[in-house]
């Protein structure tokens, strides 16, 4: 077996195929280097949750291989799962439970359950320990789920749409928790979300999935610095070089082009407007402009 500290990739998916009647994961491959925060984005139904299920070994694959921490599920399922902290979009704790009950349950599930760490998070997140789950707000439930995910010495934290539906203040607190977690360079975070603004600041890499296929997997800085939007007239568009176009949006009064060579274009003399863009805009262009 490989020495885990020498494995550079926390997650490796290789040509993963899963066919359903009306949807399939189509040869999904990506690697997540350790020590990073990775945003896994795509619209609803793009295949984010299916990919995460595959990653957790909850579905049977038609094709492909998955390795987590350099290990395969076939031989090391327990070892892998012990080291993953996962947070789903819905709280999965029964309504009548209190914090102390959850502590008891989890200590039976995880070999490395650390009650001290757990209660330190409960205190840090200001969670009431005498209330039952049904009296918890959505934000409180989410923070509790995160506390659980972080209290068994996980090295990989996976959040599936966990921050959607939370108010900006709670989302901000969660970003703090992420940054705290990642202070250990052996730790990795995969956040799936369709809310991109949160990730725009802190993510190291962005993986974009669309209709069951990976469209891109790039460093966020590269996206922000190299991608831009050129706005021009129809006539200018005719003569605009085609090779760096990533998407085109036309309206009655002009043309907008998503380009991947903004830095290069900025050096050249140009009449058209060249704007910075956001990850959200890049995605919209790629989906709506139906990228080749």
């Amino acid at each position: 077996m490989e020495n885990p500290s020498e494995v550079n990739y926390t997650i490796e998916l290789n040509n993963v195929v899963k066919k359903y009647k009306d949807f399939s994961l189509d040869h999904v491959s990506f690697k997540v280097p350790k020590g990073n925060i990775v945003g896994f984005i795509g619209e609803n139904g793009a295949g984010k949750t299916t990919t995460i299920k595959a990653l957790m070994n909850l579905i049977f694959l038609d094709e492909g291989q998955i390795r987590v921490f350099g290990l395969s599920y076939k031989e090391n399922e327990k070892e892998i799962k012990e080291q993953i902290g996962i947070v789903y979009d819905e709280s999965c704790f029964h309504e009548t439970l209190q914090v102390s009950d959850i502590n008891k349950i989890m200590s039976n599930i995880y070999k490395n359950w650390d009650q001290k760490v757990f209660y330190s998070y409960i205190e840090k997140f200001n969670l009431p320990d005498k209330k039952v789950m049904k009296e918890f707000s959505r934000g409180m439930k989410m923070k509790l789920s995160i506390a659980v995910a972080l209290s068994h010495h996980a090295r990989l934290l996976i959040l599936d749409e966990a921050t959607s539906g939370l108010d900006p203040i709670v989302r901000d607190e969660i970003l703090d928790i992420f940054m705290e977690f990642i202070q250990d360079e052996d730790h990795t975070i995969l956040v799936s979300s369709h809310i991109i603004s949160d990730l725009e600041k802190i993510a190291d890499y962005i993986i974009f999935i669309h209709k069951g296929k990976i469209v891109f997997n790039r460093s966020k800085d590269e996206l922000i610095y190299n991608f831009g939007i050129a706005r021009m007239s129809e006539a200018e568009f005719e003569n605009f070089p085609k090779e760096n176009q990533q998407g085109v949006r036309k309206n009655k009064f002009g043309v907008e082009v998503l380009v991947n060579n903004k830095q290069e274009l900025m050096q050249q003399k140009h009449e058209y407007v060249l704007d910075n863009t956001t990850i959200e805009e890049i995605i919209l262009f790629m989906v709506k402009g139906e990228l080749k």
Partner: protein
Amino acid sequence: MEIIISNTNGKPIYEQITAQIKGMIMKGTLDQGDALPSIRLLAKELRISVITTKRSYDDLEKEGFIITIPGKGSFVSEKNKEFVREEQLRKVEENLQIAVEYGKNSGILLEEMQQILKMLYEE
């Protein structure tokens, strides 16, 4: 040590960090051997990605401003300040040379250029 980054400033964030740390070294706010915050701590505090801070430190290291010792952290290098200043001066000259060429080509007088320089410097 203070680092202020702007999201609206056209400069990439890693460049802003690099420039500010260089400035602190040149001005002597940061001295030889001083420890810099870890890339992860800096990312956490500034709320930016680790890749961005890592790139800044890599650039600073390439230019000889800092050295990174694995497992220990990054430190202001022993490189002598005079040498760094010399290098910076050379860059200033290079850039002024370009400005002068533009000026000469379009018949801008030395006095006008001095005025512009004065204005920009005092901005």
